[in-house]
């Protein structure tokens, strides 16, 4: 028996008791749009999930426009497959990109385990995905870090305190702003991945290359981070707007919880809990 769901459907229309769907969803939450540094699940890219008794998972996704970059689409599809296949009961994850100028090439490439370079050899001979992945990992690091630095300044930490802050101290900071609290975890994740800071005594903040920050240099450093964020925000705002227009008919009512909220046990949806964050 296979179960197909459309994520914007209401609770009454689907079997929500299947814990495997929720597990797949949680894995997909770790996949980000590289250009936006936001999870594909939050962006509304995932259109459907299918789980069968043999451990085969089908993931269907689509992007804000027919023209979105093939390299980003390929990256996300690869990551989706990879992350979902980490679940030990999953034998195979098949990813399907829909309504895209290169959907065929992306789907064949990702599901057959072929490289971007191989699939797009004629069109992008000079392009591999590793460089792009690296470039956008840096941008993600910078964006998350800017939220932290500005947040700490707002909480009246001095620039000197900030550049000397240890990981131990960082972990104890309680941000009242929801976005800051979210990015606090995400920044922690990325400095761990990049091995920039691991033990409690390590400095929480440094440049992407691992260079030390100084109190006098912080304004200039923040100006660089700001430019990165301005680009990412542009793309993010457009993507959300374009996706809403393209698939308007699927947009749920604002206040009504969607299936995703039920799967993840977050009814009412998390925005409603804003005031509950400790100050």
């Amino acid at each position, binding site marked *: 028996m296979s179960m197909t769901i459309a994520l914007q459907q209401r609770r009454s229309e689907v079997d929500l008791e299947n814990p495997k769907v929720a597990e797949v969803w949680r894995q997909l939450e770790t996949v980000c749009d590289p250009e936006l540094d936001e999870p594909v699940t939050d962006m509304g890219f995932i259109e459907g999930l299918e789980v069968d008794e043999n451990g085969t998972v089908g993931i269907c996704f689509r992007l804000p426009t*027919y023209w979105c970059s093939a390299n980003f689409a390929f990256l996300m599809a690869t990551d989706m497959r990879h992350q979902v296949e980490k679940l030990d009961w999953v034998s195979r994850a098949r990813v399907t990109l829909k309504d895209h100028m290169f959907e065929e090439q992306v789907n064949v490439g990702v599901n057959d385990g072929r490289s971007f370079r191989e699939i797009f050899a*004629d069109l992008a001979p000079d392009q591999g995905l590793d460089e792009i992945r690296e470039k956008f990992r840096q941008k993600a690091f910078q964006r998350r870090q800017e939220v932290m630095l500005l947040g700490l300044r707002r909480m009246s930490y001095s620039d000197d305190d900030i550049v000397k802050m240890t990981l131990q101290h960082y972990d104890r900071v309680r941000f009242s702003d929801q976005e800051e609290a979210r990015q606090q975890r995400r920044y922690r994740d990325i400095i761990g991945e990049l091995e920039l800071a691991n033990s409690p005594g390590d400095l929480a903040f440094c440049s992407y290359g691992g260079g030390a920050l100084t109190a006098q240099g912080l304004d200039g450093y923040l100006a660089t981070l700001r430019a990165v964020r*301005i*680009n990412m925000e542009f793309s993010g705002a457009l993507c959300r707007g*374009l996706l809403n227009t393209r698939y308007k008919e699927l947009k749920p009512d604002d206040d009504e919880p969607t299936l995703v909220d039920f799967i993840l046990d977050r009814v009412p949806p998390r925005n409603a809990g804003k005031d509950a964050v400790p100050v």
Partner: protein
Amino acid sequence: MYKTPEGKEIFIVDGHTHFWDGSPENQTNLQGKQFIECFYAYHNALSPPEQLWEKSRFEKYTEDQLYHDLFVDGPDDVAIIQSTYLKDFYKNGFSSIERSSHMAAKYPDRFIVNGSIDPRDGNKTLEYIHYMKENFDIQGLKLYTAEWNGKSKGWALNDPAAYKCFELCDKLGIKNMHVHKGPTIIPLNKDAFDVHDVDHAATDFQNLNWIVEHCGQPRIDDFCWIAVQENNVYGGLAVVLPFIHSRPYYFAEMISELLFWVGEDNILFGSDYAIWTPRWLVEKFWAFELPEEIKQRTGVDLTPEIKEKILGLNAAALYNIDVEDRKAKLESSPVLVAAE
């Protein structure tokens, strides 16, 4: 002419407009359909609700509608119409120089129609530049590096074939190069949003003006860096400006970066008509003030004098429009309101 709430008259040059035909009858394939749908999605995503159009009108509008939206309801004095062919997607081209010039001929003081080239067509392109100069006396080109051409899915400004075209343009006095750098179609052959080819072309062709539409977003930082070093690089505000409605603080951040790096003399207003109409954009822009904290942080301001430059004077300088003379001409032939 835009009359401010204080009663001052502001000369408006709309640097980026189109007279397109994206209707199903003109579409060749799915790409043609998806292209206009993507434009329509931009229109929906960033317009105030009261400014939204029906899709059929958006796909193809009449001369009268365009004239009304720009000059009767809208505050434009002069509009620059860009040509974009997308020959692989549209039977008669998306917005052809012939169709636009035919319309513009009725209102010679109102329009400047730019041409368009695809350097991948080799010598034919050079002949075509001569054709456009002789028949339409073009002053500028729209360069759409993401255009598909058979197997090729994009080109770069520093391709050798493109340089041959620019050499000819320089010789013929075709000075203004409007480069589409920004969202919509991504040239797959190149790094998705790379703007560095502008740097090469602007350095190697100092006599030409390089107007980067959409300010290179989402690579505004790279664009700013290039613009700092090249005096002949300009930023066109199409797509950037509509954020003034949906996300005003964010718009303030973008415009302050542009003022700081690119400078008040090198930024041009453009509505991107018919994705957006100029009236609400100009009204909101005139009323807009930078938040105090941004002024302090960046040291720039958006004064009425600077707004006036951005809204018209900068583009007038690029296109040799004598503002006082043109104002007088337009006053003696006021806008024609089409019979309803």
